[in-house]
């Protein structure tokens, strides 16, 4: 059943069908042409035989007879039967085989009426005979009738043999062509099976394997397309594995701190102050972990596209002013000057909570990576149909080779440094996601030692 559904089988069947039909048409034409010409030849030879006899007849005083200097020779090769009747329909003379002719009266009637005709008659034995009757006439009228005939057995025999030959030849050709076609289809499609087998064998765990590409034909292109797809899968799986590994590492670290601290603390009696210190440390780790879990959940929800945006008109100027107040204590602590402006009165259509998180993350980063006494500035301007929020700091900057990766999850420019600052490397990835679902984007410019500028572009609210 599987074989019957295979392409090579169907290809072969189609091929054989077309070939068979063509051969049949060809054979039929050949057969009909030959049979026609054979019958035509028979008729011609009958007519010739009759004409020869008539040429050797003469009318003498109203009676018919063979000429004296008779050249007429009965040629059994061409005519088997030859009969001569007088004008009364009496048989005068006959040559060749003697046979009963069933339709002789019709023939004679026609011939004596002056018309020549062919008929095919069946004799008792089932043999078929071709008959020709012609009048012998001159200006004075019909004097006699000549009837010639010949069995069609030879022709039938030839035709029958031809039929056998043709049928046999067609069958042999079709069979050979079928075998050959199957062989060719097999050979052409063998790479397909190899591709399928390799693809089946490639599991999630060995995505580094590739299908061997041997040719540059359609199948070669198919194989390399599949290879590209496997490559994309491999990269996606790799990213997924990396993410899982990173996430588990990030979660295990605070757990390890909590576990180590609590078990160490419980090893012996300690002062109240020591216990307080331990609990403080543990609670800080728990807080760190719960932010991390929140961020992971946010990203997980965004990955499956299940988050719901509560869209409303958000006045970015007001939002930024609020955020500046929120972040002010941090700035004061590090003696960082936070410059606002120019802030245009611009409105976007978005989720206020998410937009706030986006800008807060960026502001928080700016303050975190800016040394004491630096500046952080926020600008809000309209650029055509988009709104630009630019957050600029005079911080440590980002080395150029890291810029393409900073939005990747768990990516840290300086691993040791940002860990102690409490970051997990998810903030920017969340920012980028928020910008994206709002139809916007984030661009980064940075110079090491000079500072960084994060530019958030969001579509302007149509009504504003």
């Amino acid at each position, binding site marked *: 059943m599987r074989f019957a559904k295979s392409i090579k089988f169907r290809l072969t069947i189609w091929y054989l069908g077309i070939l068979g039909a063509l051969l049949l048409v060809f054979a039929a034409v050949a057969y009909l042409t030959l049979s026609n010409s054979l019958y035509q030849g028979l008729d011609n030879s009958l007519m010739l035989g009759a004409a020869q006899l008539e040429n050797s007849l003469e009318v003498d005083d109203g009676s018919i007879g063979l000429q004296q200097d008779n050249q007429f020779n009965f040629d059994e090769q061409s005519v088997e039967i030859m009969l001569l009747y007088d004008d009364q329909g009496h048989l005068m003379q006959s040559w060749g085989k003697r046979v009963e002719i069933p339709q002789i009266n019709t023939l004679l009637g026609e011939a004596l009426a002056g018309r020549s005709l062919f008929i095919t008659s069946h004799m008792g034995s089932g043999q078929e005979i071709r008959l020709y009757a012609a009048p012998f006439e001159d200006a004075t009228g019909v004097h006699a009738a000549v009837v010639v005939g010949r069995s069609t057995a030879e022709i039938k025999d030839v035709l029958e043999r031809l039929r056998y030959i043709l049928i046999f030849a067609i069958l042999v050709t079709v069979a050979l062509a079928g075998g050959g076609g199957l062989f060719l289809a097999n050979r052409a499609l063998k790479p397909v099976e190899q591709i399928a087998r390799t693809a089946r064998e490639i599991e999630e765990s060995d995505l580094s394997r590739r299908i061997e590409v041997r040719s540059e034909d359609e199948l070669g292109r198919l194989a390399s397309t599949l290879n590209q797809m496997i490559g994309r899968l491999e990269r996606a799986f790799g990213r997924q594995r990396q993410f899982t590994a990173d996430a588990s590492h990030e979660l295990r*670290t605070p757990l390890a701190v909590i576990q180590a601290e609590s078990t160490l603390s419980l090893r012996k009696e300690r002062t109240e102050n020591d216990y307080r210190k331990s609990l403080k440390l543990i609670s800080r780790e728990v807080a760190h972990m719960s932010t991390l879990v929140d961020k992971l959940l946010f990203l997980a929800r965004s990955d499956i596209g299940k988050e719901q945006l509560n869209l409303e008109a958000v006045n970015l100027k007001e939002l930024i002013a609020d955020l500046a107040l929120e972040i002010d204590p941090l700035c004061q602590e590090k003696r960082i000057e936070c410059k606002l402006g120019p802030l245009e009165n611009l409105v976007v259509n978005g989720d206020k909570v998410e937009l706030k998180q986006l800008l807060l993350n960026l502001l928080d980063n700016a303050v975190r990576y800016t040394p004491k006494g630096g500046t952080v500035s926020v600008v809000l301007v309209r650029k055509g149909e988009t709104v630009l929020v630019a957050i600029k700091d005079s911080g440590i900057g980002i080395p150029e080779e890291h810029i393409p990766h900073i939005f990747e999850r768990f990516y840290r420019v300086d691993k040791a440094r940002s860990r102690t600052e409490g970051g997990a490397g998810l903030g920017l990835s969340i920012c980028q996601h928020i910008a994206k679902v709002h139809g916007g984007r984030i661009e980064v410019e940075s110079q090491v030692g000079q500072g960084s500028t994060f530019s958030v572009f969001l579509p302007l609210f149509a009504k504003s």
Partner: protein
Amino acid sequence: MRILVVEDERRLCNIIKRGLLEEGYAVDTAYDGEDGEYLAETNPYDLIILDIMLPKKDGIEICGELRLKRVNMPVLMLTAKDTVEDRVKGLDAGADDYLVKPFAFNELLARVRALLRREGLSKSPRLQVGDLVLDTLTREVWQGQRKIELTSKEYVILEYFMRHPNMVITRTMLEEHAWDYEFDSMSNLIDVYIRRLRRKIDERGQTSLIQTVRGAGYRLREV
């Protein structure tokens, strides 16, 4: 016993250091792979506690390179990676033991003791020289029926002596195994500690258990 802790997570590193100090070990710390490898190559630690995921150079690499350079102190891998392949990779790189985070501090200490024991001549957690018995589990020292109270540093020095009975222990060896790298070797602190130890473990009127080997150092003699 001097231990190096290589762990990039400073909070965890500090807790481990605090706990080990409490147990009387001398502890050095490094927060990245390169620093850790440098310290391990230049100091004769009795044990290294090595994280796998480290900035600059990972623990597997460090361990492999240390072993290539014939630095043979025991290595305890400490890591968040807990798949079988990770453990196998760590142990094959030359680590002696593997502990997955998060861990209970008692287990860490037990493994540290086991690894240190493996390095010494005695496999027992109780060290005995003459009638002097030191229990590394309870950290108690007995002389016959008499319990000897020692400060943690005195205990560490005595433990080192008892792990290498009858061997000449130089000042440098003591320095390197009982103190961390902040120890100032110019001071005569070692002599002070030896004097105090002698006072506590020697019976009156007998020659000291800790002999001075002139020009070399000290030796704990078996009675």
